[in-house]
């Protein structure tokens, strides 16, 4: 009798534990189910992106001998797809969902005297790396708005220098990054809360890990600003939102 | 002392009072403020009196020493000119003036009206790094200008702050500057101590308050806490052209500033002026026609004392003492080598003043000055020991509603009372008072 009670007690305890575990991971596992997809296009003719004169640094010139470098403010792919647009959920996330920090560590590379990627999105407090693949000295000089909470810094990265690991304290769309040594080098860090995505060369994106619900998705492009769209994500049914920025 | 001489003496006193007022010259240059984008208050405790920062700027040869001093850094349109004007209403009252209509031969005379203290045209600044100049043209009531200051400076020679040279006409190195004084009235505008001569004395040379021609060496520590200077100046009244004689005067000054915790930075120093000046002159065609450069019969004079600037929070005290001595020939107005009156000897005196400022803010300042001069040895034995003693009390305030890097505008109100023992025509005490109400501005 006594032993039976013991077993029942243990089972019920395990059950409680398991349920607790389920409860605690619910948002994550549920989030894994939902996502938001879509494309971002440019409505109109792609603006001409100026070529970059890198003649001040022979190394940079050499890297682009066969492929001339152009500014990357507006990169339009096949079918009018806009690359480097950051999409994030600006409304509809619960507090816990908004404070979740993506676990991967995105990399901002300085390659051929250009920033790869040109725009790097990340969560608040998400660690990211700045590395250099170049045989020339760069300095990484992000210029956030100090009054809003993120503090500017300025570090050097000569050839072969180890990556710089950093993170940002508050949301900011977007932090301009530049290299003073190579004035054409100009990119952005986009610091957001909750799940986010960046468009690929076709202009398509997928925001993963979105729990079912109603959301406002914001698309940010450095030249054209922001657009928003209402999206509903149901269990097992991804939400979709397509955006079109009008060419200036 | 004859009554004629007394009349002469009181006349001199009155004349010198008015001269003091007319010759007021300021060294506040919004031209500098414009150049550097600093407010008046950065350099002036209250315009035109300097604070330690302003004194250091001046001692560096009008340079902030941040490698932006040379005029090449200035906008082409920059022209370092400043104009100062002091329109006012003032009232002057002297109790005993020789008057023909008065039964006793003397009576009180009071005059009042609107007036202007002249106009100063100032320019100064750097010609290049460590090479600077200053000129101050002051006008009289006929808009005739005289050179109040005109000098060239060579600073930080061999890169050392201890080697600075100044040539031309300049203010003597008084850390308590009369030219930058905060008082403007006829009888209280100047410092008696910087112009004093005993009654009957005709030495017009030994006046610390007058700008002089000469060469000055100034050395100071990098932070200007320690300053020392020596100047060789003409023994003259400071006017242009070669002086009446070929004699020189030396002026030496030194001071040290030190920090006294929360009270601020205090400064103590000394000064000494020792020189010779002529008592006689060659003439041609009678005693009224002196020959330029024909002075002779040089005699000695000296003025020395301590000075200090003390801070007590918003209160500051400027203190100057003086021990002065004029040779018997000066003291008795005797032309050497003529015969001195029986028993004549040097005139000796002591004096001091304390000027207090309550700096409510850089834009509002209350001022008081009390000044005392006491004869300690009369030139002629038997003369009343207090003859010629002076007491001077001044009160006022200065409110600057406008004080930026382009202009300064002050409303100035001041009352002054002065008494000279035995200065009246009848040999009794002479008192005089001034009330001043005016605007003082520069741009």
């Amino acid at each position, binding site marked *: 009798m006594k032993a039976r009670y013991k077993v029942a007690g243990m089972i019920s305890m395990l059950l409680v534990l398991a349920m607790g575990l389920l409860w605690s991971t619910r948002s994550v596992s549920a989030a894994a189910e939902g996502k938001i997809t879509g494309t971002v296009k440019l409505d109109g003719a792609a603006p001409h992106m100026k070529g970059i004169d890198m003649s001040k640094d022979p190394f940079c010139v050499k890297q682009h001998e066969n492929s001339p470098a152009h500014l990357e403010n507006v990169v339009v792919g096949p079918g009018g797809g806009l690359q480097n647009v950051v999409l994030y959920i600006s409304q509809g996330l619960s507090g816990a969902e908004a404070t979740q920090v993506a676990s991967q560590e995105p990399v901002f590379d300085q390659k051929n005297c250009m920033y790869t990627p040109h725009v790097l999105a990340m969560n608040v407090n998400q660690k990211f790396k700045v590395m250099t693949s170049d045989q020339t000295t760069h300095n990484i000089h992000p210029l956030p708005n100090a009054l809003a909470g993120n503090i500017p810094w300025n570090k050097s990265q000569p050839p072969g220098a180890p990556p710089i690991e950093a993170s940002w304290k508050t949301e900011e769309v977007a932090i301009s990054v530049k290299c003073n040594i190579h004035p054409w080098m100009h990119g952005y860090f986009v610091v957001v809360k909750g799940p986010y995505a960046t468009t690929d060369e076709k202009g398509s994106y997928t925001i993963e890990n979105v729990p079912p619900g109603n959301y406002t998705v914001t698309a940010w492009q450095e030249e054209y600003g922001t657009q928003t769209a209402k999206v509903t994500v149901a269990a097992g049914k991804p939400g979709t939102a397509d955006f079109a920025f009008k060419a200036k | 002392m004859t009554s004629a001489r007394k009349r002469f003496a009181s006349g001199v006193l009155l004349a010198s009072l008015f001269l003091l007022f007319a010759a007021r010259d300021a060294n506040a240059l919004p031209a500098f403020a414009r150049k550097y*984008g600093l407010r008046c208050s950065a350099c002036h405790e209250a315009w035109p009196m300097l604070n330690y920062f302003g004194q250091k700027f001046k001692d560096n040869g009008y340079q902030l020493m*941040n490698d932006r001093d040379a005029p090449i850094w200035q906008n082409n349109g920059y022209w370092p000119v400043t104009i100062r004007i002091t329109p006012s209403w003032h009232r002057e009252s002297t109790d005993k003036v020789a008057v023909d209509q008065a039964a006793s031969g003397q009576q009180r005379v009071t005059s009042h009206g609107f007036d202007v203290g002249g106009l100063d045209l100032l320019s100064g600044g750097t010609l290049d790094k460590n090479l600077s100049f200053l000129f101050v043209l002051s006008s009289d009531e006929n808009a005739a200008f005289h050179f109040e200051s005109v000098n060239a400076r060579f600073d930080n020679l061999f890169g050392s702050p201890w080697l600075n040279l100044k040539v031309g006409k300049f203010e003597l190195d008084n850390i308590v500057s009369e030219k930058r004084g905060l008082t403007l009235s006829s009888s209280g505008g100047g410092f008696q101590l910087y112009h004093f001569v005993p009654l009957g004395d005709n030495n017009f040379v030994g006046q610390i308050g007058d700008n002089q021609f000469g060469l000055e060496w100034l050395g100071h520590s990098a932070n200007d806490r320690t300053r020392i200077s020596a100047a060789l100046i003409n023994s003259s009244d400071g006017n242009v052209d070669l002086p009446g004689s070929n004699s020189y005067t030396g002026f030496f000054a030194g001071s040290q500033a030190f920090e006294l915790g929360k009270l601020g930075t205090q400064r103590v120093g000394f000064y000494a002026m020792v020189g010779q000046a002529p008592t006689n002159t060659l003439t041609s065609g009678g005693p009224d026609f002196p020959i330029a450069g024909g002075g002779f019969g040089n005699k000695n004079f000296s003025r020395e004392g301590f000075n200090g600037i003390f801070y007590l929070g918003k209160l500051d005290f400027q203190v100057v003492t003086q021990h002065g001595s004029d040779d018997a020939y000066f003291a008795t107005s005797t032309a050497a080598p003529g015969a001195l009156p029986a028993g004549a000897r040097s005139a000796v005196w002591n004096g001091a003043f304390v000027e207090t400022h309550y700096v409510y803010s850089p834009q509002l300042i209350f001022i008081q000055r009390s000044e005392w001069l006491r004869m300690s040895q009369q030139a002629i034995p038997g003369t009343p020991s207090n003859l010629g003693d002076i007491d001077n009390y001044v009160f006022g305030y200065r409110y600057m509603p406008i004080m930026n890097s382009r202009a300064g505008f002050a409303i100035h109100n001041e009352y002054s009372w002065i008494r000279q023992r035995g200065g009246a025509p009848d040999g009794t005490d002479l008192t005089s008072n001034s009330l001043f109400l005016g605007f003082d501005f520069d741009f």
Partner: protein
Amino acid sequence: MRRMMLNGSLVLTAVVTVALCSFSWAQATKAEEDRRLGMESHIGKLTGHAAAAQGTYRRYCVGCHGVLGDGEGENAQWLDPKPRNFTLGIFKCRSTTTGTLPLDSDLFDTIGRGLDSSNMPSWNPLSSQERADLAAYVKHFSARWVTEKPGTPIEIPKKPEVTAERLKAGQEVFQRVECWKCHGPTGMGNGPSAATLTDDQNRPILPYNFHDGNRFKCGTTDEDLYRIFMTGLDGTPMPSWSDNIKPDEAWDLVFYLRTLQPMKSKAKEIARQIGLKPGAPSAAPASAPQQ
């Protein structure tokens, strides 16, 4: 006509509204700053109190740095480089790493030293108490001093003896980390990137020319020079090098940089003896293209 008047009054209303808004914004900012007037600074034995510096700031600083400490004083429009905006809490002269707040003593030293080649003079005629109070007052403008601690000061090892080997090693560091990109192959401030440099407000700024022999922005001593390049000058293009130059190498670089200056120094004397020429021994930098 009436419509024009209506438009006029609308415009007027808008202008007044904007003016009132900016006024109340300024007031709100001021009120927020005033709440931080209890800020202190600690420099050695000195304790500075922000509240005690109100008069001093008004007397000496407000014309350029402004009532709100935002660098928008009445004279700011005439100045270049612009006066520092204290509300950001970003300072050139720090002994702490880039992106962190400086030490109180850094602010105190900057006030006393002034910044060469700018309009900021040395305020050392002010008493040390006044300067400590001002340092606290500078801090009270930014809320960062409430929420953040100053960064960790970089360690400066004891200065080694200057030797010919160290000078050569210093020159190699100069080449390797490419100081010449901005400062020029011989340190004349004419590197290929010099002409395009801008500060954080996007205003043109010049790299230091070693041949001028002027004071550095943040001091005159060898230790100051060490600190300048290791911490970088925040707000300017000069980055921090502490991640990429080892302490020992940093001293080598200090000694080499001294040889580029006109002033007499032991390093310069040794460089003369061994015939060390500034410039590029190996990786010849391209000369700056004609502008």
